[in-house]
């Protein structure tokens, strides 16, 4: 949309019509007013505010008026006593979660897709979606109740009285298992939608050729899901450092910190609880930068693998 003077009559025409098109659509622009204003104020201005990671932020002096101190906050973070532990916990928690929570929805979707009793299939889907609609707070409350050393369901069944939430060796298992319980069912939707778009004549042809159920899944369903699987994997890899704050924080106890101490919790504690605004922003920015680097690397690798770099 350049505003240079039109040379040819043709250009005058298009510029006029552009102007008229803008005027004709003024109501649409008016509709965009509120969403755009909200996005500028609460998304773009905070992005601009990231610079306080390099400043000594004082509320009275604002984002741009506070003193510039360079990388001091980053250096402080790197030399924090729990720095190594936090990085390790964040990466491992995320990586193990991904290893479990990535394949399970695919397997569930492949199975449900073969289910021929439609009523049963629908009921199964409804039940599988249910935990996704429950608050993290409630889920963590349930986890605490089930794992309670006295009268908790798990200890009752096993006949033991272990306080799982004080064992740092159990934390990752608790986090990942409950995560699968809550979200694996919801995760099947995108795969079910993709599977339902596969041409059914392929199955008929395979049946004629004598392909077994397993062979049909292997040679028809899985290749059909390949691109969406790669896409999901890239997105998850790009979120590797974004361990959800809520659940870790609610399940953390003083005794399981050896494995539950992650960056997201640190950002919250330093920034909101201790009001160390600049320091917390620096830690958050460090996390974001690593995420972006991971996203680019994985995208490159996946692009090479599938000769299709248009994923993102």
């Amino acid at each position: 949309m350049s505003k240079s003077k039109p040379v040819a009559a043709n250009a005058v025409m298009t510029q006029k019509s552009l102007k008229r098109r803008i005027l004709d659509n003024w109501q649409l622009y008016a509709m965009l007013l509120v969403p755009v204003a909200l996005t500028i104020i609460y998304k773009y201005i905070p992005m601009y505010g990231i610079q306080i990671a390099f400043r000594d932020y004082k509320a009275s002096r604002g984002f741009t008026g506070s003193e510039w101190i360079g990388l001091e906050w980053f250096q402080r973070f790197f030399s924090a006593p729990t720095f190594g532990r936090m990085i390790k916990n964040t990466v491992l928690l995320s990586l193990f979660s991904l290893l479990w929570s990535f394949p399970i929805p695919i397997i569930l979707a492949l199975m449900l897709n073969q289910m021929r009793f439609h009523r049963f299939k629908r009921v199964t889907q409804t039940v599988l979606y249910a935990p996704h609609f429950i608050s993290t707070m409630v889920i963590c409350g349930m986890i605490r109740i089930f794992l309670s050393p006295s009268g908790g369901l798990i200890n009752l069944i096993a006949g033991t009285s272990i306080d799982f939430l004080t064992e740092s060796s159990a934390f990752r298992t608790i986090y990942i298992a409950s995560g699968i319980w809550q979200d694996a069912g919801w995760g099947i939707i995108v795969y079910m939608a993709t599977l339902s778009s596969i041409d059914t004549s392929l199955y008929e042809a395979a049946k004629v050729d004598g392909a077994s159920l397993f062979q049909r899944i292997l040679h028809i369903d899985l290749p059909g899901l390949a691109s969406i699987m790669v896409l999901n994997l890239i997105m998850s890899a790009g979120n590797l450092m974004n361990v959800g704050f809520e659940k870790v924080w609610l399940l953390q106890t003083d005794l399981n910190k050896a494995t539950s101490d992650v960056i997201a919790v640190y950002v919250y504690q330093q920034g909101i609880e201790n009001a160390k605004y600049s320091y917390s922003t620096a830690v958050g920015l460090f996390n974001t930068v690593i995420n972006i680097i991971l996203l680019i690397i994985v995208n490159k690798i996946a692009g090479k693998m599938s000769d299709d770099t248009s994923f993102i």
Partner: protein
Amino acid sequence: MSVNVKANTKSGKLTGFSEKTSDIILVVICAIILLIVAYPLYYVLIASVSNPYDVFAGKTFLLPSQFTLDGYKAVFADSSILTGLLNSFKYTIIGTVFSVTVLYLAAYPLSVKDLPGRKFFSLFFIITMYFGGGMVPTYLIVKQTGLINNMWALFLPGGVAVGNMIIVRNFFENSIPKEMIEAAEIDGASKWTTFIRIVVPLSRSIMAVMVVFSMVAYWNDWFTSMIYLPSPSKAPLPLVLRNILIKSSASASQASTISGGFAELNKMTEMIKFSSIIIAAVPMLIVYPFVQKYFEKGFMAGAVKG
């Protein structure tokens, strides 16, 4: 085609046994998975209407023991839980109306193909999906705009839910006949009139999904309220439950209403845990099956040009 069908029935006879076996195996596996997903919820439900000592002793694996509604009575007698419940209803209703409105206001203009600047605005919103200011800069802006302890701090900073907006935009592009919009505009209807009279009524199914997503997000949220609404009287239900479920402490109002001493209070606290989980979870579990059939369609539409 007829050849195909014949061959199919023939092979069905040949491999009939293995098909049947695989059906049985599938049903059994699915039943086990159903049990794993549903049992924890069922257990909490029966524990919530049982005597807490029996729950502790492991007598409520399958059926309630010494049926009682005392847990629910205690919940509704607790003023802090009641306040939380009312706050949650308020935030959920106002927040959902606001968020879905903003979502529609953004999605419709971006679905109009010949709108000058359409690409720019799309990019403008999509960038915020991948980059953000992070917790503290956002918090500082919310503070500067005077929203601390104001309910609107839950709605405004969320802005446009971009992922959902793309789903709605794609629905507008693919499922609303262009001819209808053009015809209306030739008849002299303004863009706004076509939006209200044609686009909104024709998109009821996707709107239902967005309403449910938004309701669930607001009903279940506690983190935003914890940061932006520090006043206890403004806490939504999940945040109130944090004291009971996570910190395992009885609220002050509870302690004052119970006369039976420490053991009785302890028993009450345990009962309230179960019943309050049910009260917090049930509303959304009732709502989502109504729009379940649209989930797959919606995700498909969103994935086409995500």
